[in-house]
């Protein structure tokens, strides 16, 4: 009777199976350096995804995550060029992003504009402002401290991966073990019911927009450090990738619900596929084809497994 249902962990098993397959086909895949490459490539999108996860958990969406990432990356670079100390630069950048989150939240929770419209509009506004202060061109910063976060390593582990690990652990604790994070789930599960148990859905949504914008901005900071530069277009493809990570992630751990561990596994899976295919010398069209097929297959398997599991629960 008590047979453990593996469906919630299927995504991780699929990721491991595919990694194994690549390891057999291409021995360099399993080298420490390559694993670090995979993780390093995951960091930026993963942090942005964790930010977006907070908003999706409440049942809303922030379409401006790419613009927030780009503005974060560009602002820290420009501040560095203008000799602002790096740490102070980070503080200023994150504050700027927090303000953007507050504006997103303001239009949605105070005025009542649907979140996707408010954030869609804001993405253009933010993009415009970013282009204004970068003069719509790439900006470069080459100081040592600027490059450290994205390119530095401690004992072979990229600093950015450590940063991701810290953020992931905090985000996991926040959503799973802290009352503040639990309230986000409550709002997403039933905003109406929240009012009867004394949770203010507007306050929670505001909070999620601010966290999202700050994490996206931080992802931009790491990204600019990785490439020693920033440009206003660096966030253009972020939204679809972030949503892909999150959708895949919703099929792991908490089924059908956006969550932190799933988001990370989803992001790693996509990078494993990309990395493995590149190592094997696959063409771009082959990469896209295989990536798409694996994603659809994974989610299909999980959906079927989940339907099976629910069918077995008696409606008592």
């Amino acid at each position, binding site marked *: 009777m008590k047979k453990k249902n593996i469906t919630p962990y299927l995504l991780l098993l699929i990721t491991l199976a595919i990694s194994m397959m690549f390891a057999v086909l291409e021995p360099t895949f399993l080298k420490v350096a390559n694993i670090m490459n995979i993780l390093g490539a995951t960091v930026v999108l993963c942090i942005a995804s964790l930010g977006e996860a907070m908003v999706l958990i409440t049942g809303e969406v922030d379409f401006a995550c790419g613009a927030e990432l780009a503005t974060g990356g560009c602002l820290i670079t420009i501040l560095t060029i203008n000799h602002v100390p790096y740490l102070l630069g980070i503080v200023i950048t994150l504050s700027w992003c927090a303000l953007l989150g507050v504006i997103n939240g303001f239009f949605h929770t105070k005025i009542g504009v649907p979140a996707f419209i408010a954030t869609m509009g804001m993405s253009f506004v933010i993009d415009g402002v970013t282009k204004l202060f970068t003069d719509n061109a790439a900006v470069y910063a080459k100081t040592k401290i600027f490059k450290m976060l994205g390119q530095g390593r401690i004992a072979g582990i990229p600093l950015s991966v450590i940063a991701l690990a810290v953020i992931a652990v905090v985000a996991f604790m926040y959503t799973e073990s802290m009352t503040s994070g639990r309230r986000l789930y409550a709002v997403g599960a039933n905003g109406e019911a929240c*009012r*009867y*148990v004394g949770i203010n859905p507007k306050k929670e949504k505001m909070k999620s927009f601010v966290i999202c914008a700050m994490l996206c901005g931080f992802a931009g900071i790491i990204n600019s450090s990785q490439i020693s530069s920033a440009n206003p277009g660096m966030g253009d493809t972020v939204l679809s990738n972030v949503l892909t990570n999150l959708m895949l992630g919703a099929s792991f751990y908490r089924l059908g619900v956006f969550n932190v561990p799933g988001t990370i596994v989803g992001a790693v899976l996509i990078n494993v596929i990309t990395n493995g295919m590149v190592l094997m010398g696959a063409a771009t069209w082959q990469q896209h084809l295989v990536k798409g097929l694996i994603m659809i297959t994974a989610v299909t398997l999980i959906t079927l497994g989940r339907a099976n599991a629910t069918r077995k629960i008696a409606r*008592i």
Partner: protein
Amino acid sequence: MLLSTPLLEIKGLTKGFTGVLAVDHVDFKVGRKEIHAIIGENGAGKSTLCKMITGTYSMDDGQIYMDGKEVHFTGPADSMAAGIYMVYQERNLISYMTGAQNISLNAEVIKGVVVDEKAAMEKAEEIKRQLKVEIPLEVEVEKLGAGEQQLIEIMRAFSATPKLLILDEPTASLGEGEIEPFLKFIKGMTTQMDVSIIYITHKLEEIFQIADKVTVLTEGKVTMTAEIADTSQNKCVKAMIKSDKMKEFAVPVKDYEDLENNKLLEVKNVNYGGKTYDTDFYICKGEVVGFYGLVGSGRTEAMETIAGIRSSDQKHFIFDGEEITSGDSYKMISKGMVLTPELRRNGIFPALNLIENVCSLYINKLATKLGMVKKKESAVFAKTILDENDTKYASINQKISDLSGGNMQKIIIGRSIRVENLKLLVVDEPTAGLDLGAKSEIYVKIRHLADELGKSVVFISSELEELLKTCDRIYVFYNGNVVKELKREDFSKEVILGYTLGGVRSAREAHA
């Protein structure tokens, strides 16, 4: 075809979920032009049985015959084609479409490439004439009352030619004034047209008004089938529930002078939706006060405004000796006022598990100062609440959406009465859709709160009988205002109904 062949015959119908037989070898027949009532407790298998008839659920065993021929339905589309149409307890209307559009939904007449709205209206008008109902068809259904929406759903069945209508608790969402005409309409339908009805309900008095036959289900088995003339309400109740499930209680006589020195809540008027209403009422410590009125009469709105759930331009009332002029539901809950929602779906978090649902009212209590959730305590607390309210569940980690409505309600009320500094509990339609045994448990809980624990309860309900049975006082609402207050010794159904419909008030005003 012989006239004696029943329209629908069911033999040995069986359906199990994880080893539990929800429907256990059920036999029954529905004759032509017959209203056949099915009654039973929550979870007795009524809905499961009907969903097998419509093909929504597959059956494990048994046969279904229509007009003497065996049929196999693999889905509602099959059964609809055979003339069986089920109207569910929850409304399935598209709120922003008109009545006519809803009726012709999925059976639209197409003119060129667009839907022919005129044809839809004509069709709807024809059904309206056929059923002899008065209902506006050109307004969006969200603007109609619960009873009218119910009628639209039934009319939808007549866009084809139904032989058998299955109505699942059709009066559950209707107010007192709407039920009578609805029952007359149902009865009229079977006398004037060749249509049979399976009528699922909890309300015994309705059966004796309209049904020809009654079948009682208990734990998936048929425990009684009888012509309505050969049975009585008592016999039905006996067939339905085991005697130990009905809880008895008595309402103690209160000394009002004593009570009135201990007022907990005093309200002169409430403001919501941009209007101020005259609601002069008070709630004393240790009493159960009923709020009665039609749906939309302001009984729910008034309490939701006071509880900080509904927004208000200006607030002014006295709660526990303190003047309150602002504050959201969080503030009122922390002051000891908890409200359980009228609609059950507003009280639960479907995607979350039982622990999270029970503890949602206690998010801050069951956490450390740093805001970390105390997981062990939460699980233990959830289990306590579930067990002391006799909730049926498989695991505390299962999603609440897997439970039946009755069990959800037990959780919603169960978690509310355990709030530490609870002073006022407002229950809004707490017994809607519950069976007699479960209802009596709620009445007992409410009286216990007031009589033994000295807390106050506001009991909002559309069922006058239950208010008369459980309350110390009743306020009647009409058009947003409080129009009458009655103490227990003055309770009178006629007086209350008169005020409910506004008649007495307007007569009095005319006099003045």
